[in-house]
């Protein structure tokens, strides 16, 4: 029977690969951000599953601390990326398609 560590590690790996593939292939910016989030989730899953011990032994706290900081950093990076994506879409739409609206959308 497959152990729990192995199961969750492999899941993390597949999530990572799936996210990386979508990150490269998909074109929509929001989807790219989603894909990178999936990737980071895969990495976190792999890290935490190395810390898991079957039975009632002690849990390794170091990967937990790393994943904890990683989650908070990834959410801030996601927010930054989302704002960047919004800016990219605004500016590209304005400059490519509707130049007459440029003064009132990018006026800030």
């Amino acid at each position, binding site marked *: *029977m497959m152990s*729990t560590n192995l*199961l*969750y590690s492999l*899941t993390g790996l*597949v*999530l990572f690969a*799936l*996210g990386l593939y*979508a990150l490269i292939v*998909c*074109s*929509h910016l*929001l*989807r790219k951000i*989603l*894909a990178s*989030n*999936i990737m980071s*989730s895969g990495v*976190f*899953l792999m890290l*935490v*599953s190395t*810390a*898991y011990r079957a039975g009632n032994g002690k*849990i390794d706290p170091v990967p*937990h*601390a790393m*994943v*904890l900081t990683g*989650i*908070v950093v990834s*959410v801030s990076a*996601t*927010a930054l990326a*989302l*704002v960047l*994506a*919004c800016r990219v*879409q*605004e500016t*590209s*739409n304005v400059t*490519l*398609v*509707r130049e007459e*609206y440029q003064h*009132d*959308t990018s006026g800030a």
Partner: protein
Amino acid sequence: MVAEMTYIMAGFDMLLVATLLWLAWRLLSTPDIFKAVVLFICFGLVMALAWVRLRAPDVALAEAAIGAGITGPLFLAALRRMERLSKEERRLDFEEDRDADHSPGKV
């Protein structure tokens, strides 16, 4: 009894992992970006369940707060912000990477 518990736990693991992978696959492959965002919110919730299962309560707390409370609103707000320029992003069965040339002329 212990063996039964082990089997139930294994079944729980399998179902959890399958749900995670299915959610990830669906959210990366649906053409509807709003559906992808909703699926991502669900993905965060299921991830929190996985942390609980892996006995990482600290990580589960952070993921429950961030994945449920912060990331979902962030993506929804960003989606809305993007939609204010191109209104038709969220329609059903809409091609996600349409060229920007024939987007509606309203801002």
